[in-house]
């Protein structure tokens, strides 16, 4: 229905264009909000995750009394308002103490939601170490076989990757690879640790890595999940045709990586070839030579290039 109303100013037109679906999408933004009741842990945790995610996140300061697993309409409303497709919702109650809900939306509808309970938490400020600058693209590492086997964990891995990966970049400054987020799945728990990466001399080109914990660190347990159906999940992954690289015709590679090109060419007319002229080979009058050569199909040859 939105297209019925035409933007009246250039500015509003630009704004609407920025919100419209794009071929190559912008960085996903996250909205970080708290529920009706939150504990000190949750409030601090939300703030810390906000500081990890910072340029691409919105921190909601007020309470939002909603339960995402029961009714996601208010989340969808907020996502439309701020144009965010990731959310983090923190709440605390007796049944589910220290609860964090990671989720993402597709087309302003909830795609996945995974609820994680915090068992142990060390905040960013508790660990006294020099921190990474804001907006550093983190290296993400997932360890544990559960991330490869269990369906919930697989989806959680995808969700966390989506949440923390930051902008997609074409190049990265090697000295700027400072931040490591390490997720370990073990005994039904998920340990999230955040380290600063120190590049030490190793004697060869690649440096030796030493890690220093900077926080925040969490021990999570998996609670409720809301996973998208396979159809919807597939639909959300569908890439536009324009983004797919066009297949180049007539070029192939063999096992050794040698490039082959297929060349189409007409049969050469040998009668016009300049050769040594001799009296004996001179064409006689009335002789037909080239007729039989014409009219043959073009020859196809594989040429190495």
């Amino acid at each position, binding site marked *: 229905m939105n297209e019925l109303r035409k933007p009246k100013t250039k500015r509003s037109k630009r704004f609407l264009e920025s919100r*419209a679906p794009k*071929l190559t999408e912008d960085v996903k933004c996250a909205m970080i909000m708290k529920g009706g009741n939150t504990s000190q842990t949750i409030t601090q945790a939300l703030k810390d995750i906000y500081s990890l995610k910072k340029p691409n996140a919105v921190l909601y300061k007020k309470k939002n009394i909603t339960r995402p697993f029961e009714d996601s309409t208010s989340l969808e409303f907020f996502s439309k308002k701020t144009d965010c497709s990731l959310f983090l919702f923190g709440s605390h109650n007796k049944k589910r103490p220290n609860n964090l809900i990671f989720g993402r939306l597709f087309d302003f509808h909830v795609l996945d939601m995974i609820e994680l309970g915090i068992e142990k938490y060390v905040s960013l400020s508790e660990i006294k170490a020099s921190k990474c600058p804001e907006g550093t693209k983190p290296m993400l590492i997932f360890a544990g076989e559960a991330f490869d086997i269990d369906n*919930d964990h697989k989806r959680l891995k995808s969700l966390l990757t989506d949440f923390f*990966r930051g902008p997609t970049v074409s190049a990265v400054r090697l000295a700027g690879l400072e931040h490591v987020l390490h997720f370990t799945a073990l005994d039904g728990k998920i340990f999230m*640790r955040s380290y600063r990466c120190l590049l030490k001399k190793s004697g060869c080109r690649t440096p030796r*890595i030493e890690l220093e914990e900077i926080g925040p660190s969490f021990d999570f347990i998996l609670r409720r999940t809301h996973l998208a159906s396979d159809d919807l999940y597939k*639909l959300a992954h569908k890439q536009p045709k324009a983004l797919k690289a066009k297949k180049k015709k007539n070029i192939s590679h063999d096992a050794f990586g040698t490039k082959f090109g297929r060349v189409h060419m007409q049969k050469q007319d040998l009668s016009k070839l300049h050769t040594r002229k001799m009296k004996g080979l001179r064409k006689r009058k009335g002789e037909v030579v080239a007729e039989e050569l014409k009219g043959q199909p073009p020859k196809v040859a594989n040429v190495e290039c």
Partner: protein
Amino acid sequence: MAACSVEELLLKAEQEEAEKLRSISVHKELDLDFDIGNLLACDKNRIESRDLRQQLKENYLRSLARDNTQLLINEIWKLPTERVEEAIVAKLPDTTTPLPREKPPPKPRPPTKWEKFAKLKGIQKKKKTNLVWDETKKEWRRRWGYKRANDDTKDWLIEVPETADSNEDQFAKRIKAKKERVAKNELNRLRNIARSQKIKVPSIGLVPTAQQSKDDLATAVSVAKTSTASVGRFQDRLPKEKPTKSRGKKRKFEPLIGDFSTERHKQLELLKIMDTKKPKLDITKAVNKQMREEDREEAAAKHKRGAGKKGRKGNMSGKAKGKGGKGKGGKAGGGKRSKPGKR
């Protein structure tokens, strides 16, 4: 003697090389999966929980993270690098992990009625120059917009045409005409949108036009005449006025004798609809609803299973019951949207 020294030297070099590599090489049973575009690594090796208990947990996690990071860094350092403003940057390859999009891919705008017509007729757009010569101002001015050339709204004097009423305000007439053109354009825009969304476009009696044709006027008269309480029955007629053509649809009946198969088919179809007792199905709505239900059920079932393992049963039994009931209700899938139940 010489041969021996060569061998020794080689061995020494090899050892040195190994020594150098030792600090950065990590041994893993299964290789890690890398997605360098996202700076992402996935370690599929089994972690023994015994190891965790033996060592201090934090230390163990850190050493695991160190090894994995080292492997990832090794992989990143293999990429081609270049120097940009005194910083060494590595070119990242494209990402390989499929992640869902934020919004569906943009759809091309469906062609408007004019565009369709133009394509049919082979009419192509011509690029017009931006600047036009203004005869009165003696300068080049824009074709459209602010300070445009030959701007007829800025005329301070308009010649009254001979045929026109001398008391008519020619300025107001121009403004009105412009307003009507804008309104018509807006209407056409809305009709194009409606057509693109497959909404039935209402047929319009009269479109604002500058000059109404004879047919248009006749329609206007007939519409005005029938717009009374008695549907124009007691409306007076002018002398010599032709009776208006009735614009209503006439009922048509099937012939009494003739093709019976169509009649039978129609009746059967009608009976079929009457027999079902189901409300008319909105397919897209129903499918969406069904999908949501299934999701929720699946999630609930999965969670119930998970909770059972940990021995938390008390809270969950009620929920499962509620789910089953709703699944049945969802099948009918009418226009009414049921609210998700309270858990």
